[in-house]
């Protein structure tokens, strides 16, 4: 009986969307919009890769999704509640349910690994526990387990800035595990590590996420990784979605249009104008292309 609500939720088409974006836009000052009219539905348990050239608006989109940046217009609906109407307390509660992994530099280097991992608990701890933990670490067992899961069991007491870039990214992963969020966002999590390691970290992220039934949205520079590990791929360019489909549906032409041939010279190329004038495919507004993730494999 206790399982019933969860099951029915998963079945029904609309509430299964953990995250819904409606015409989301962000403009900084008077510049061209960084993100422009994005409409997107994300189902529970989906693993989504966002690819696109640098400057496409990926980071802006992520900062809006993890509620660090208010959108200029449009709405974000997380688990059924519109984010814009939340008070500070509710805002914290929603933030707790969204875990974030950034490109780099987002750990507190001078703290020990332990505290960076435990900071995943800050959304749940009352303030006095948070302060106490800095002196006398709480939930140590959980932190150690999370570090073990990412293969850093022996670094618990190391100072974070003494670790390598790849290790720091694993620490960020462990923190998100400890946060136990429903939705995990990762913004270019492997941009600053070497390819071999990038593969490992993305695989770890997707595997751990699947095991725990999390929803993942990961932006990647590396198309191969996106196609290999994710159930859905979004193309983002100039702040707009250019395609949204399963990895096996992505064609070289779509990628060529996404990355535009002559962007090397900067600015908006002729080709890009052409691409936005005649979009490769209609912008999806529902979970049209959704395929249940292969959790049983």
């Amino acid at each position, binding site marked *: 009986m206790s399982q019933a609500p969860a099951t029915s939720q998963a079945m029904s088409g609309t509430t299964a969307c953990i995250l819904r974006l409606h015409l989301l836009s962000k403009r900084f000052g008077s510049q061209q919009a960084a993100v422009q009219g994005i409409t997107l539905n994300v189902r529970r348990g989906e693993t989504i890769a966002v690819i696109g050239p640098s400057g496409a608006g990926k980071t802006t989109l992520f900062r809006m999704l993890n509620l660090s940046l*208010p959108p200029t217009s449009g709405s974000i609906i997380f688990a059924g509640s519109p984010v814009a109407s939340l008070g*500070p307390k509710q805002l914290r509660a929603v933030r707790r*349910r969204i*875990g974030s992994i950034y490109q780099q530099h987002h750990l507190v280097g001078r703290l020990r690994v332990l505290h960076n991992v435990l900071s995943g608990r*800050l959304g749940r701890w009352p303030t006095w526990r*948070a302060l106490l933990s800095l002196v006398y670490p709480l939930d140590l067992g959980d932190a150690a387990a999370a570090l073990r899961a990412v293969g850093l069991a022996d670094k618990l007491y190391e100072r974070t800035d003494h670790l390598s870039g790849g290790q720091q990214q694993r620490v960020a992963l462990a*923190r998100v595990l400890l946060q136990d969020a429903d939705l995990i966002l990762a913004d270019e999590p492997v941009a600053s590590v070497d390819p071999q390691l990038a593969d490992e970290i993305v695989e770890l992220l997707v595997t751990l996420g699947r095991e725990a039934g999390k929803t993942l949205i990961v932006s990647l520079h590396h198309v191969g990784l996106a196609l290999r590990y994710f159930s859905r791929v979004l193309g983002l360019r100039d702040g707009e979605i250019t395609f949204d489909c399963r990895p096996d549906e992505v064609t070289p032409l779509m990628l060529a249009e996404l990355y535009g041939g002559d962007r090397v010279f900067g600015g908006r190329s002729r080709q890009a104008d052409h691409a936005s004038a005649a979009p490769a495919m209609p912008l999806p507004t529902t979970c049209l292309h959704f395929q249940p993730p292969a959790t049983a494999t």
Partner: protein
Amino acid sequence: MSSAPLDPQHPRQPLPYLKLLLALVAFGAAWRLTEMQPSALFAAEGRRNMLAFIGGMFPPDLSVDFLQRMLGPLLTTIQLSIAGMVLAILIGLALALPAARTLRFAGVLHEVALRRRRRWLLAVLPYAGARGLLNLLRAVPELVWALIFVRAVGLGAFPGVLAIGVAYGGILGKIYAEIIEGVAPQPLETLQSTGAGKLAVFCYGIVPQALPHAVSYTLYRWECAIRASAVLGFVGAGGIGQEIELSMRMFNFHEVMTLLMMVFGLVAITDLISAAVRRRLR
């Protein structure tokens, strides 16, 4: 002369000459105002006085009796500087927290919440107040503070402690606020995105980043406080300064020399201590 239009990169402007002229006029005015007369330095009488003074400083008075008598004032100077710094740190922290923009209304921690709540003004007012107070505390030199406090609470070390506490509290408060504003914002954003509260973000994100800078600067100020406490004594705030003033008034210049050497010694020791702490903090 007609080449000006040909060279758009370097339009002819009278301004450089104007500035030079202004600078010269200011210099001349300042020269007159300060009654500069370099020849006075070489006038026989002045030279004799100065040489008498400098000559009188040697040899420094190193008699055991004098040194023993000066031990008390020396310790008082150390105590005065430490007590003053503790007060300054408290005042500095109390004012830095409202005076740091990133804690009140700007930066990653407020992107979402404030825009919606429209409590912007409520956050800005304490900020403006704290900044104004910090400027006021900083603008008045510690010696003037000392004079005011001597009038207010009487002679002794107490006004010295208050003077250092208030004057350096203003300096520390400004620097602390700048350090807090200067920490890397990305870790704060991450912490906030885990749902952490304000205080938790402060303790996990801001404190670890800001602490080394704040400690290092505080130690540097301690060094200055020791130097200052030598001067504060002149107006009756106790310590070595008072002895220097006394010895000067009695024309015991060799004692002045000894006392000055004591101050250098103290400053050198402070310097060593802060260098050691800084190395550890890295």
